């Protein structure tokens, strides 16, 4: 087990280097970050020259990447065009994104798994149809519609939740977390329902029932652990997606998280922001996948990680 974890950690290194190099080349080789920085008029040539020199935009790409990698190894992720340290910005925004992702994941896991179990157990009955149809509804409505409506109804009209989440406190992040979790919840419910229904038809379930185990133990201990494997995979993917992909929800609720920061970097063509943020996101994603893989072994003893 320990060897497996160490091996996986070592495998991360070439993945990180490869992905950052690809992103770096794509960001810095295309587009001109100087255009449009001076309002409605073109920037003076001296300003352009100084900007390009300061940001090393005149060097060939491999040289730029080597310089960047050198700074990265010292922990310096570079500065944004406005002069703020990318690393400091990420550290400031990371807790907000983590809180948001945590609220979303807890909400979608608890409610989604519960709904899926109930639907699978009450197959063909009213509850099953309710879960299936409502999850279909949620999947078909775009997230910005759900977010906008939630903000309008629960924030502005009813006043239950704060309208925006600028400060990023737990209380402010509940509503955007619920909105984010809503879509994944639908997927988890359906996934849980399908997997559980399939597993309930297995031989070992028949054996367990024949042995006289109470239904709660049959379902809750034996079948559930096996059925959770695809769901855990999905949740692992979802955590990664939530880290950097909650852009639309962050805009609607003005959450100062990683997604909005990345989006701004893309719009402003600020290479340091984009490459720095994506490096961190790649790292997070790899770690989450490692956790998911280790959890497989816990859930299903048949799966060996060695």
């Amino acid at each position: 087990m320990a060897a497996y974890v160490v091996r996986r950690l070592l495998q991360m290194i070439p993945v990180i280097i490869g992905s950052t190099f690809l992103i770096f080349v794509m960001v810095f080789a295309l587009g001109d970050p100087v255009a449009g920085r001076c309002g409605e008029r073109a920037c003076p040539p001296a300003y352009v020259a100084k900007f390009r020199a300061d940001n090393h935009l005149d060097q060939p790409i491999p040289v730029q990447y080597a310089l960047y990698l050198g700074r990265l190894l010292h922990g310096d992720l570079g500065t944004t065009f406005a002069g703020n340290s990318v690393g400091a910005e990420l550290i400031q925004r990371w807790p907000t994104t983590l809180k948001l992702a945590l609220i979303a994941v807890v909400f979608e896991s608890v409610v989604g798994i519960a709904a899926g179990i109930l639907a699978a157990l009450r197959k063909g009955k009213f509850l099953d149809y309710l879960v299936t149809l409502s999850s279909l509804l949620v999947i078909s409505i775009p997230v910005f519609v759900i977010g906008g409506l939630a903000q309008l109804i629960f924030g502005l009209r009813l006043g239950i939740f704060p309208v925006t989440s600028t400060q990023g406190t737990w209380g402010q992040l509940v509503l955007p977390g619920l909105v984010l979790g809503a879509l994944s919840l639908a997927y988890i419910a359906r996934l849980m329902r399908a997997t559980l229904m399939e597993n309930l038809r297995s031989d070992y379930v028949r054996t367990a029932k024949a042995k006289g185990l109470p239904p709660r133990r049959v379902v809750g201990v034996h079948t559930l652990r096996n059925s959770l494997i695809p769901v855990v995979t999905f949740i692992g993917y979802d955590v990664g997606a939530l880290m950097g992909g909650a852009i639309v929800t962050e805009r609607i609720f003005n959450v100062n998280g990683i997604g909005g920061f990345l989006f701004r970097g893309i719009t402003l063509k600020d290479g340091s922001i984009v490459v720095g943020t994506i490096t961190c996101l790649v790292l997070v994603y790899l770690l989450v996948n490692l956790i998911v893989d280790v959890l497989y072994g816990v859930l299903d003893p048949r799966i060996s990680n060695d």
Partner: protein
Amino acid sequence: MRARTRLLAGAAVTSLALLATACGGGSSSPDAGNSAGTTGGGGGQITVNGCTPKAPLIAGNTSETCGGNIVDAFTAKLVHYNSDTAAPEMDLAESIDTSDNQNFTVKLKSGLTFQDGSPLTSKSFVDAWNYTAYGPNGQAGSYFMTPFDGFADVQCGDADCKQKPKAETMSGLKVVDDTTFTIKTTDKVSNLLTRLGYSAFAPQPQAFFDNPETFGQKPVGAGPFKVDSTGSTETVLSKWADYKGVAPAQVDQVTFRVYQDPSAAYNDVVANNLDVLDQIPPDQLIGDQWQSDLADRFGQRDIGGNDWVTFSPEDPQLKNNVPLRKALSMAIDRTSILNTVFNGTRSAATGWVPPAVDGYKAGACGDACTFDAAKAKAAYDAAGGYKGTLTYTANVDGAGNADMGTAICNSIKNTLGVDCVLNGVNDFATFQKGIDAGEYKGMMRSAWQMDYPSIENFLAPIYSKGADSNWSKYDSPTFADLLNKAAAASTPDEANALYQQAEAQLGTDFPTAPLDYKKANFGWSDRVSNVKITPFGTPDLSSITVK
């Protein structure tokens, strides 16, 4: 045994992950004074919507509105623009005298200091202006120093600045004593006094020259507010008690809160979480929704901004065909379009200069800006028509740009029968690049926000030969001659009359078709009163009070 080991391993890894969350969650985001209304009686703290500055907050290097709004709050200049009329008033200057519009003597008020206590003298102005103009410093505001004598000598010899400039300072600026300095301009400039209120002309303290690289993180000026903290999510300013100018602050603290989306800011203003919002998203303008949402907390005023259509100089069909351009302009139903897209919060243009500006005179565009379907069709046919597809290129990252473009194209298509299509460009940066490369034919969206309140600012930077913003590549000796005469005029009225003649020349040559004059739509929370928007479209932070 094996199962237990796995369980332990799984638990350990998962708890590590949760620990990371908890540790991350422990560092709380800065909460200092940005929650509106928590401090109660006498506090006087307000929040204003902002956007992330694109560069460090240095007055001579900031030419976009996000940083510009903050820079205007913490700096004071020689003159200050009245927030109602935009007329320049003496701020740090005691007097600015000239007898010939070419040699100016500036006298400062006595006892001026910066917010860090250092003395504010003539040198603070002259050194700052020289720094901004000096080519190798690459300051975005150096363009504004062009009129000063010696400006050409401080420019780099080539585009990459490998050849250093001949001089380090401009010969036209001379310090006489601590409170007096003289300005000599290369040519006569009749509106120099009006220009000197622009933020690029702000003085800089010694702390800036000691460390220009890091000054922008915590900049210092002499304005009614001083900077407490800067950041990409908010900038906090507090009242500076020793401000000696004409626009002292009433509130104690202003927080510029960055919003990624104008809709989020709008929702916050409606919910009284944000105190001042200086722009309403277009989808809330429909049906006057914003007015019913905000009840008595909204306002609207004319500002010094306008939009127009530039006819591409790369388009052979449009290049030398003035009647065709006028026909296309006549086919644009400005009033209907503005009502539909902006719900009447912009007014149809009749000339190239908006009403909020000193020197405005209506009607320079004449018939070409009045919608008349029959007349437009007749003129269009007489001019030979446009073969192929007419394109309207616009950057679609601004609110309403895409809708406006589609509406203009439809108006032309329905009136004249020519196929017209919107060519949307993702963002302004790409659009600017495309224009510089001459990529677009047909029509291009153009807009302007004034730097200083003068008719000259709507003519010279946009229509002078070789000017950076002269997208239509307009070149008229008559126009240039009128501009020179106006610059040399001895009274403002004489100058304005000549500038108006130059504007009339645009009506004859028709390089661009005016579309609209902008208005500012703004809203505020129920905590504040006396909310005013300046003719620049920015909130007047000095006059706002907390109830």
